[in-house]
């Protein structure tokens, strides 16, 4: 394995560097701008994201497809997988900034910090998607966590928001502490922090009998606490409904999509590179553990969503459930057949893209309704079909896509995922997943019911700007079309881990 040294690495690290530079620039601009209502800082942050995107594309094309480079003496790796996640995360951040501009709940005095923190958290997530060293993994995770705590508590006037931040920190601290312990165990067993080397060393160490499979399993379970907390999987999900409910809506959207995607990136890379050798995976019997976690995550997420009256909280539970569906793909990492492992990874990536559009879209509608109706409760959606027909239609599309009703994209995402799972011979898991989809219909349909089947006491129609509809279209069109076009399937197949 050849590594690039620090100075050489910088050129390939330009997307991340640009994010940091622009984060600083946003803070400085905020000091200069006098008009508090001005959106200049937000647009500067968007420009930063744009520059970073260009840098990603340039570095990626300089790299060539199916090539990878180990940067900073093997701390992080730049490959197609990392690029995929970086683009996804970047777009999620861009969407969050656009939501934030339109959201009325944010404190205008704190704009500079807000957008700078968003760029910083994106930076951390970039690292999560590409870290290949135990130390780097931990640093990346903490960068994301610490910034997320502040963002979750950003509504300084709202006690709920402060409570959210506090809960987030408490859970986060415990989870990352546990994870650090697990990482140190792995380090002790393999004698190195480099994931690829760990992958080569572990089978030998296991074979020599110095370390038992149980020991590895324990270490991995500790590490799962940290990762599970990021992707909100059972039993580390408890923080998420409270945090999602209390945080500003754009941040909730961001956490439910970007944070989860970054968590999965880390998860996949960690297990694939570190334990990619399926002998190790099978000797420690991780597959069953992951399958049970996956089944519990989706079931608990869906059942808890059923009685929710607050749409934000409902979507929080729904995103826990979606984490469970995604975990089904992760279970396949333990499969002995490399083709099936790749299918599992491909299915997760494909689902994440679709989830990105349908979930962010749904949250955008929540932002809009919170602005106009001043509520996040399901009652606020009553009669929306007559008050704002286009927004209601879009929301119905997102919700049914989340349920997985064809011909919407969510169905095709689930289709790819379930096909992979069944191919891995996990029929029972697929059954659990599919029955969960049926359960989820009930609570998604409750919102649709409120919008279409019930009428509001207040019948004034809402008016939205053209920009709002344009942004909504950006989410609706892919939710309608992604599944129907072959090109997206072949694209997701091309991205694999090595």
């Amino acid at each position: 394995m050849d590594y690039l040294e620090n100075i050489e690495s910088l050129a390939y690290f330009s997307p991340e560097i640009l994010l940091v530079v622009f984060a600083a620039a946003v803070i400085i601009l905020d000091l200069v701008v006098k008009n508090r209502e001005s959106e200049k800082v937000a647009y500067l942050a968007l420009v930063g994201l744009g520059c970073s995107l260009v840098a990603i594309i340039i570095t990626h094309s300089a790299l060539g497809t199916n090539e990878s480079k180990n940067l900073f003496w093997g701390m992080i790796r730049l490959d197609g997988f990392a690029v995929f996640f970086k683009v996804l995360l970047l777009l999620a951040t861009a969407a969050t900034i656009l939501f934030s501009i339109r959201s009325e709940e944010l404190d205008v005095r704190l704009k500079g910090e807000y957008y700078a923190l968003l760029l910083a958290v994106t930076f951390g997530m970039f690292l999560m998607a590409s870290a290949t060293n135990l130390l780097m993994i931990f640093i990346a995770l903490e960068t994301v966590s610490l910034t997320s705590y502040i963002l979750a508590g950003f509504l300084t006037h709202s006690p709920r928001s402060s409570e959210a931040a506090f809960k987030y920190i408490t859970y986060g601290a415990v989870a990352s502490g546990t994870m650090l312990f697990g990482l140190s165990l792995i380090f002790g067993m393999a004698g190195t922090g480099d994931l690829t080397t760990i992958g080569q060393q572990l089978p030998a160490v296991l074979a020599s009998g110095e370390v038992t499979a149980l020991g590895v399993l324990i270490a991995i379970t500790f590490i799962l606490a940290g990762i599970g907390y990021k992707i909100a999987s059972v039993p580390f999900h408890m923080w998420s409904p409270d945090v999602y409910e209390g945080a500003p809506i754009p941040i909730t959207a961001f956490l439910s999509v970007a944070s989860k995607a970054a968590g999965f990136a880390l998860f996949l890379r960690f297990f694939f590179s570190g334990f990619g050798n399926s002998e190790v995976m099978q000797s420690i019997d991780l597959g069953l553990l992951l399958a049970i976690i996956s089944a519990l995550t989706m079931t608990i997420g869906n059942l808890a969503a059923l009685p929710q009256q607050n749409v934000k909280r409902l979507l929080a539970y729904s995103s826990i459930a979606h984490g469970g569906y995604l975990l089904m793909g992760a279970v396949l990492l333990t499969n002995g057949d490399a083709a099936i492992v790749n299918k599992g990874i491909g299915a997760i990536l494909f689902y994440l893209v679709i989830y990105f559009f349908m979930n962010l879209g749904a949250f955008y509608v929540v932002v809009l309704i919170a602005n106009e109706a001043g509520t996040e409760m399901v009652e606020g959606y009553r009669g929306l079909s007559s008050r704002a027909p286009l927004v209601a239609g879009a929301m119905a599309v997102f919700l049914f896509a989340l349920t997985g009703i064809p011909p919407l994209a969510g169905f095709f995402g689930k289709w790819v995922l379930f096909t992979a799972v069944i191919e891995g011979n996990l029929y029972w898991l697929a059954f659990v997943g599919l029955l969960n989809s049926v359960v989820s219909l009930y609570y998604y349909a409750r919102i649709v019911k409120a919008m279409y089947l019930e009428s509001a006491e207040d019948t004034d129609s809402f008016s939205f700007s053209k920009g709002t509809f344009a942004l909504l279209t950006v989410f609706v069109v892919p939710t309608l079309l992604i599944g129907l076009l072959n090109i997206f399937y072949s694209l997701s197949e091309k991205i694999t881990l090595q």
Partner: protein
Amino acid sequence: MLLSLMIFVPLLGMIVVLLLPRESEELIKRVTLLFTLIPLLLAVVLFISYDRSTAGTQYFVSVPWIETFNINYHIGIDGLSVTLILLTALLGPICVLASWRNIEKGIKAYMALFLLLETGMLGFFAALDLFLFFVFFELTLLPMYFLIGVWGGPRREYAAIKFFLYTLFGSVLMLVAIIAVYLNSNVINGIAAGARTFDIPTLIERAATEGHALADRTFQIWVFLGFFIGFAVKVPIFPFHTWLPDAHVEAPTAISVILAGVLLKMGTYGLVRINMDMLPEGMAFFTKVTEETGLWGYSLALLGFINIVYGSFCALAQTDFKKLVAYSSIGHMGFVILGLAAGNEVGVTGAILQMFNHGVISAMLFLLVGVLYDRAHHREINGFGGLGNRMPIYTGITTLAFMASLGLPGLSGFIGEAFSLLGAYERFPTLAILSTIGIVVGAAYFLWTLQRVFLGTLNPKYEALPEINKREILTLVPLGILTIVLGIWPHFAIEMFSESVVELTTKIMGTLQANL
């Protein structure tokens, strides 16, 4: 091309309707009518030009769709599907006419959803790719949910979500079965060779190949169950039927017509197309009593029998006119199941005839209930009486529909039921004989209803009840003519699918023989 055009013309109509201004309601209705008449015209062309002398699919089109999974846009028709397509296309404009006056709010959204529903139904009957088949199957769910939920009766929300949940539950089991079929579609003697496929004709062929994973008995039994539950919810077969009375009672008239006329047939069509044609070994397990199968061998016929008797007795107990018709539907669909369970030529011919005839007759019945409800604003059977004098034309048509439904010889309902029973008698004599109870009870509740609604003294409240109008008659006449024509000359329909049925039943009977 003709077939694709027919499927997607309603979808185009939906887009046109959505672009029309909300206020011009008359225009919206006319445009919708036009876009449902075009598929009818095309369906009639297909029906006439269909080559009756072969069993194979015709008019097929196959275009790659999602190549990564080898999914194709593959459609085509055989005798069975062309019959049901004709039924669907015929009920389309009738339903639009039936919705002309009694949909008060949001006519634009209603018509748009209706057109989407029609595309889903037509596509389903034409699909020859398993994935496409599933997508069209599910495509009918969303419009149906809204059509019942927004435009339905007082308990519409409950009925709509119940319908949706039940069907979705069935279809996820079906989805697992579809994935299992797909993953095993290229495995011969335990070795994967070649590309996987969703192509239904190819799958049917492979399922009949010795040593192919799809031909494996145990595999077929499990997959059969997955598909069966999916379709059973739709038919509906006891014990998955409880959504049906709720949905029917709450749905607006036209939607009840579509529900009874077409959506229920989607279930039985699926049973024929997938469970019988693709999974004959599974079919044999559930329809033939041997030492290995034991009582399972009775299961399908028994379910048919339960549907017939249970549905009929439930209908007898109803005092709500629409609920009575809904339960009678459950009973009549039982004959389809019984005929299919028989698996012989007579039985399957009867079952398919019954599908078509029940589509026509139940559509008439629901339209008639709607006519009465629009005038009296209730459906309580005991609340009427003596309407025969007040509304002679209406009474006449209703009597025709009742007689057809209870199986009076000379009208279409009789032929299907008689053939189904005849077929079943060869295989399950006891159950066939017991099933005739259903016919007797059927006669009882229809005649009793006739007596309570139309005979006796006129309820003074309804002295001014207006007679059925021309538009309503227009919706009923084509259906009425069909019941008479098919009653006298059933060959008109039978010749469409007789070749397909012969091929299918030869295979089924062959499998049954091999399993002796």
